[in-house]
């Protein structure tokens, strides 16, 4: 134990309490894992001799078009992220570096969306999509989230910390605004883009209400909605299969998290604090 460490070592009793609490916190997930990897007959009985199986995953995969749902979700989250990067970069640059009239009021108005997310105004936004003919399309699911107040806020903060001299230097080289953003601001704000990208992907991978309302066919449904449709249609309450499906839909994010744990947590922090 290093001498500089300021926090005390927990007493054995506190450590035990912490482990019990950690175990308690992990129980729902462990129980789901147990059920998903065991035959239905052993799902709720705990015996070390119970045979492991992947059949539940195979049955879930066959019972609903999860492959299609995966494709939809991947297209959706990547599409939203790409569009957010473009739209929010432009707006953030405008707000951070051009002192135009009304910029402060505009920024305040943009921040309203932190609170009033598109799913709070479901009815009006549904009507807007109807007018645009985008009901039951992936574009319709993503469009309301493309101009993200959170992204604009985050990138504006990042851009403000970039020295004006670098901007001036690029301009002297004859770079126009877009070229300056591309060559100076994007590379320097890279960690912020990574953080924002991770937060955006995990948010939209998990988003539920808005896609539930907008989609009504297999071709457009993302995983969350697909899982809900799968679990609520009578499965004869086969919990092993439902747990397998639930874990399957979360698996890519979970695996990514396990692999890049440190980066993930730092990104969430970076995105959450200033």
């Amino acid at each position, binding site marked *: 134990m290093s001498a500089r460490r300021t926090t005390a070592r927990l007493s054995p009793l506190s450590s035990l309490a912490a482990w019990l609490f950690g175990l308690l916190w992990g129980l*729902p997930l462990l129980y789901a894992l147990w059920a998903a990897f065991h035959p239905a007959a052993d799902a709720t009985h705990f015996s070390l001799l119970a045979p492991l199986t992947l059949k539940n995953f195979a049955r879930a995969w066959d019972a609903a078009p999860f492959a299609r749902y995966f494709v939809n979700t991947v297209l959706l989250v990547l599409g939203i992220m790409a569009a957010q990067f473009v739209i929010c970069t432009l707006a953030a640059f405008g707000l951070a570096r051009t002192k135009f009239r009304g910029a402060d009021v505009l920024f305040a108005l943009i*921040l309203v969306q932190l609170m009033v997310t598109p799913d709070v105004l479901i009815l*009006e936004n549904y009507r807007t999509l109807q007018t645009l003919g985008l009901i039951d399309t992936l574009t319709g699911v993503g469009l309301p989230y493309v101009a993200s107040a959170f992204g604009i806020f985050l990138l504006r903060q990042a851009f403000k910390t970039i020295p004006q001299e670098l901007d001036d230097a690029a*301009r002297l080289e004859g770079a126009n605004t877009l070229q300056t953003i591309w060559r100076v601001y994007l590379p320097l704000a890279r960690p912020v883009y990574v953080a924002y990208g991770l937060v955006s992907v995990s948010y939209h991978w998990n988003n539920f209400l808005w896609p539930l309302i907008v989609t009504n066919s297999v071709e457009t449904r993302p995983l969350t909605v697909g899982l809900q449709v799968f679990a609520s249609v009578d499965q004869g309450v086969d919990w092993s299969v439902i747990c397998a499906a639930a874990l399957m839909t979360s698996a890519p994010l979970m695996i990514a998290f396990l692999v890049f744990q440190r980066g993930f*947590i730092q990104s969430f*922090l970076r995105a959450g604090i200033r």
Partner: protein
Amino acid sequence: MNLNSSAERPSPDALRASPSPRRGEGTRLNPHVQGWLLALPAVALLATFTHVPAVKTIIDSFFATPRGNHAAPFVGLDQYRAMLADPIFARALENNVIYALITVPLAIAIALAMALVVNACVTGRAALRLAFFTPTILPMVAAANIWLFFYTPDYGLINQAIRALGFAGVNFLGDPATALPALMAVTVWKEAGFFMIFFLAALQQVPPDLHEAARLENASRWQVFCRITWPMVMPTTLFVAINALINAFRVVDQVIAMTGGDPNNATTLLLFYIYQVAFSFWDSGYAAALSTVLLVVLASIALAQFFLLDRRIHYR
């Protein structure tokens, strides 16, 4: 183009005084126009999906629901009078307030405890952090289905434990007394780990000399918490509380996935009721009035944040 290729370049000041006719400079827009042009795509989309619908929702709440091709007649405050007489609305609002009052402080307390544990020297720190944070990564719908299984009356883990101890089983989601708390547990389970990382960051910024001083004064662990830790993480606590409060009034996924508002509206929350009125009952006028209430709630939280928090902490 290489940034360092230009041999003889004028100083930035000279450039500002007399704009050179180089590429980019010659076509330079007025900064006001350029700023607005850059922001335009975002502004247009934000207006379309946030500001305009918010205003339209408020206006619609003063009209009846249109039937057929007839334009909706203006009804003044009738929708709001109906709301006051609507027991389901009262139930939804009450449920939501209880939901917020219990889940927000509980999630914060647990998150802070988790952060203190993970920040301390404890064997198995990494495993604990993993156990605490993993629920955050799951989609709420997946978590809800996992908890549905966890809560199952016959063979859910909790009921197995209860019965092993010799008590009668409990139908958590079927009993009006336990259904709402059962949903709250899922929310706290999923949110606490997320808030934990904010507290973790705050704890790591506490200056070491404070702990050093406390050690020299022989302060007890509880005194250290009250006098040092708690005041130092206060800005984080407020930041997390505001976010948790906003989330509490937008909860809907777990209601749809786990109970559908049952039993007997015991788990109906505001946004779920709006969803039901708008997309199951197709009563758009009333849904607009309900949405207006939600907007007012969210706006109040925003104002509270504005006046309570030192904005420099988070927005500068």
